[in-house]
């Protein structure tokens, strides 16, 4: 017995070492452990038998999972294989199977006609083989999700059926093939090649080829009527990228400047970089000279309007049945209260046992206009997966009802920059500007904050107290000291610094006066959308304790944005979105003036931004250091990710932020409570809950299933 185990292990080791030399590097997947190679083998799958090569042709493939690889070594990419790769590694021959019946509305809504062809013809010749997380699922069931409204707060639902050429693996680092079979950059990142899957088909059975990608780019994105200016995502070195078809399954993209960020963008974006040419050419003026007449007949002004009825970057902007998709689930029913998507009979992924995915028959997105109603739905067990709109403060209620609602709460971190304050360093009042632009003032204000108490009150102590840096601590080049600088609660030192700055005179109530003897009042105007207003009540008290008078005023988001976009605010306090590696790298907005999500929610430095955008025609010339920062970030954007230059430039950027205190951090974005129904299988531990990596996509929702 022992001998056999040893023998098996050795054989596996040989296969594995051959593999290591044969395939590309860079996989994070743990090496197969010897005990697992000889471990117990489930009855339905035969073990790997390298000793008898003659029989391998007939051996069915082992139903390996991430939890139990059953001796199948890791492939080129974590948790997934190409068909031939899997057959070789497992030394088996895969046979395919699928669900018996598909949703009848796929026929009534005009996708399909007559009988479906056999499964072998529906799958690509080279299907993607994925290892389910825990077990081979069973077909059936509905994934019940809920969002605030059509196209509102529903990115997690969109992500659960999303497909793209490549996607992020659940390590949030490795970019793995998805619709594309493989990708390759040239050495200086000026060319990117995608190879597609032979025999891949749209949900109506029509072949999906390189032409569909070319059509998307050349005839949609570059069409000046559809997109009057090319979206910045596709522009590198000032020029739109260029795309060339090599053959039916190969496409090559050329850039005017190194574009190492494009692959990252495609992997994390909600945009699908292909459209079904055979469907859209009827609507496109260059392919159908009568496209305008078709549009007018449909009651619209011209072909562009009509085209947009069926197409949009945001993947639920269409409300029309019958558009061919590559997604796992296809829209079959839409009302004002819900949407139902049914399994795509032509989906290109199979599990390790050869079952065509997805397991889920349907995905249902219901609408609930109110966060409280969403909470109630969760509590009563009407929701299978939810994290958007659920905050830490809902935890006591949600935790109390886990049994009655039959769900588990996961607490992955978010990836935002957390709650931050900025005193307007480009204030219109010269006296205030001088005070606010002085890093000593921000440092004093930072030391005056009792972050531990903030953490307790707002976050049950679950957040991380930190200084304000627009780079998430999980980013590869992040320096720990950035986040720890001056975050201790030290009102005495804060008072000393303020005295040292000359703010020594005080009024009858003990509040400091401005150097010119005027009352010194700072208006903290805020909107509830930027986060729990309790934070402002707390910071008001901390800052008043060191003699800085604060007045609070609540306004609507629009009012707040008006104020900041015309540089009339004293304090910027809107949240800063994505700061995780993929986002800072492909779109480092928060690192540049006005240090916010966009010019709309400026923190400070609006006039600098105007100066920079208008090449000096309007706005104000920023100080040398800010100009240097702008150059630095521009330089950094085209470096190769994780390279030495990337790290050193990125670190220099962070250092500049650390010195200048443009942002005063409080607590990091809180953990994102994620509700996962206990009836949902193959959902792993969510490691980061964020739109930055498109929500659920790294956790492969196409292999989730309903256990009952």
């Amino acid at each position, binding site marked *: 017995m022992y001998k056999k185990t040893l023998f098996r292990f050795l054989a596996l080791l040989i296969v594995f070492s051959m593999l290591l030399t044969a395939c590309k590097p860079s996989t994070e997947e743990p090496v197969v452990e010897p005990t697992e190679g000889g471990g117990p083998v489930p009855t339905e799958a035969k073990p790997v038998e390298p000793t008898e090569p003659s029989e391998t042709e007939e051996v069915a493939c082992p139903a390996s999972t991430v939890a139990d690889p059953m001796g199948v070594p890791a492939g080129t990419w974590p948790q997934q294989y190409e068909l031939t790769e899997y057959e070789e590694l497992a030394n088996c021959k895969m046979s395919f199977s699928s669900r018996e019946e598909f949703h009848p509305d796929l026929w009534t809504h005009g996708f399909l006609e007559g009988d479906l062809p056999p499964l072998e013809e529906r799958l690509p010749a080279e299907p993607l083989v994925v290892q389910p997380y825990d077990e081979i699922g069973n077909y059936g069931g509905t994934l019940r999700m809920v969002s605030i409204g059509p196209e509102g707060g529903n990115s997690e639902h969109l992500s659960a059926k999303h497909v793209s050429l490549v996607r992020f693996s659940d390590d949030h680092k490795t970019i793995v093939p998805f619709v594309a079979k493989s990708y390759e950059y040239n050495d200086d990142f000026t060319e990117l090649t995608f190879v597609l899957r032979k025999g891949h088909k749209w949900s109506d059975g029509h072949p999906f080829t390189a032409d569909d990608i070319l059509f998307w780019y050349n005839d949609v994105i570059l069409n000046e009527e559809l997109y009057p200016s090319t979206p910045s995502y596709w522009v590198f070195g000032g020029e739109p990228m260029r795309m060339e078809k090599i053959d039916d399954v190969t496409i090559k993209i050329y850039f005017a400047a190194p574009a190492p960020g494009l692959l990252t963008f495609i992997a994390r974006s909600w945009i699908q970089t292909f459209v079904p040419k055979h469907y859209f050419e009827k609507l496109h003026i260059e392919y159908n000279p009568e496209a305008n007449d078709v549009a007018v007949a449909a009651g619209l002004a011209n072909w562009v309007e009509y085209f947009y009825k069926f197409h949009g970057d945001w993947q639920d902007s269409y409300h029309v049945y019958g558009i061919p998709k590559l997604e796992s689930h296809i829209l079959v029913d839409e009302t004002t209260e819900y949407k139902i998507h049914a399994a795509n009979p032509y989906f290109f992924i199979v599990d390790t046992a050869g079952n065509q995915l997805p397991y889920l028959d349907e995905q249902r997105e219901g609408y609930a206009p109110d966060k409280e109603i969403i909470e109630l739905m969760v509590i009563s067990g009407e929701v299978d997966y939810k994290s958007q709109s659920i905050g830490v*403060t809902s935890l006591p*209620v949600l*935790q109390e009802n886990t049994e009655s609602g039959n769900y588990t709460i996961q607490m992955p971190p978010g990836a935002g920059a957390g709650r931050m304050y900025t005193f307007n360093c480009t204030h219109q009042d010269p006296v205030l500007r001088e005070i606010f632009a002085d890093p000593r003032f921000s440092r004093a204000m930072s030391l005056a904050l009792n972050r531990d108490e903030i953490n*307790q009150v707002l976050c049950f102590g679950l957040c991380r107290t930190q200084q304000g840096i627009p780079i998430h601590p999980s980013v590869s080049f992040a320096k720990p000291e950035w986040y720890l600088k001056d975050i201790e609660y030290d009102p005495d030192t804060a008072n000393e610094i303020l005295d040292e700055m000359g703010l020594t005179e005080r009024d009858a109530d003990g509040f400091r006066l401005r150097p010119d003897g005027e009352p010194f009042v700072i208006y903290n105007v805020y909107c509830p959308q930027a986060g729990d207003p309790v934070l402002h009540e707390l910071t008001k008290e901390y800052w008043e304790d060191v003699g800085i008078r604060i007045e*609070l*005023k609540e306004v609507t988001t629009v009012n707040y944005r008006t104020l900041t976009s015309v540089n009339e605010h004293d304090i910027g306090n809107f949240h800063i979105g994505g700061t995780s590696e993929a986002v800072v790298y492909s779109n480092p907005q928060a690192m540049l003036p006005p240090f916010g999500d966009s010019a709309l929610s400026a923190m400070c430095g609006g006039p600098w931004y105007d100066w920079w955008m208008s090449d000096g025609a309007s706005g104000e010339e920023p100080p040398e250091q800010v100009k240097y920062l702008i150059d630095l970030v521009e330089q950094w954007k085209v470096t190769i990710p994780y390279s030495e230059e990337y790290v050193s430039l990125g670190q220099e950027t962070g250092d500049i932020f650390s010195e200048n205190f443009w942002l005063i951090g409080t607590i990091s974005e809180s953990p994102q409570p994620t509700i996962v129904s206990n009836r949902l299988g193959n959902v792993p531990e969510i490691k980061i809950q964020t739109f930055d990596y498109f929500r659920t996509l790294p956790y492969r929702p196409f292999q989730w299933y309903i256990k009952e």
Partner: protein
Amino acid sequence: MADLGGLSGTGTASQPGLRGLQTEKELKYYTATQAQLIWWRFKKHRLALLGTSILAIFLIIVLFANFISPMDPFTRNSNYIFGPPQKLHFIDEEGTFHLRPFVYGVTNELDPETFQFNTVEDTSQAYPVQFFIKGDPYKLWGIIRTDIHLFGVEDGFLHLLGTDKLGRDLLSRAFFATRTSLTIGVIGMLFTFFLGLIIGGISGFFGGRVDDITQRLIEFTRSIPDLPLLMALAASLPKEWSPLRVYFSITFILALLGWTNLARRVRSKLLSLREADFIIAAKIAGSSDARIIMRHMLPSFMSYIIVDLSISFPYMIIAETSLSFIGLGLRPPVISWGVLLNESQNIKAISQHPWLFSPVVFVILAVLAFNFVGDGIRDAADPYAT
């Protein structure tokens, strides 16, 4: 025969000087002034009396909010966040009765698993409630600097209505909210009331040209749309004003716009009264205009106005929060009933912290008291009615 206000005679003593009047009580009744009659009648209305005493208590709260609150409404007790109301005890563990009530020390700790606060009473630590005790310093009416509070405990803490999300004492906050909501609400309401009464009164009494001009003025005022005006105000009010000041000026401006309805009603009532026999009689008797209005006309439709007033009071409280969406209402850190109730409007408060609703009791009491008193005054205002 009119109801004699509980004075109908049972006595037998006769008064020879006054023909037909049997008793001293009857005599008293017929010689009483109108004010006395109103008061006698009002006293009979038990609910109105109850309402009056409640309003009296509210008045004390309004005047002495700092003093009767056990602590400053912004003092955070970080050891007792979302703390439930503490129980007042008279009998200790050993069953001994104490005349002076006491509370036990309480710990309130967050359970890291369930995210619920576990509240445990520590019966070894008893804190007797003491009166006129030193606490958070304050300035009474902005003048007298002191730190004496009506009641409180030494060393420990006393939260009779529990605490909110920042560990602030809800009872103290409710007292301060009462002060804000009642003063601002009532002042705004009274201002509307007097404007409507005076302008409507002038218009209806004099009629003719005066009436024409006043009516056109009313039509002009009514044609000004509220919402755009308020939004323009929201943008134009000096930003350094505190939310309280903004709200006060808004109620003032609302009053300047809102008097028209009442003025119209007063006018039409007066127009019809003007022709009544008793008014003509008063005119012939040589009464001045002011006397006729104040003495004869107003009392005869007082009941109607009082109903109007007591009904408009709850609207004032609702308006307080509804204005906030254009940045004009009361928002934290101002403490008002609306602000406190807003904080309790969620599932969490219902299922986990029901004591956050306790300020509702204040609102209900105030609204009921105003209605009872209004009801009583309305009945009493016309003491000759059957």
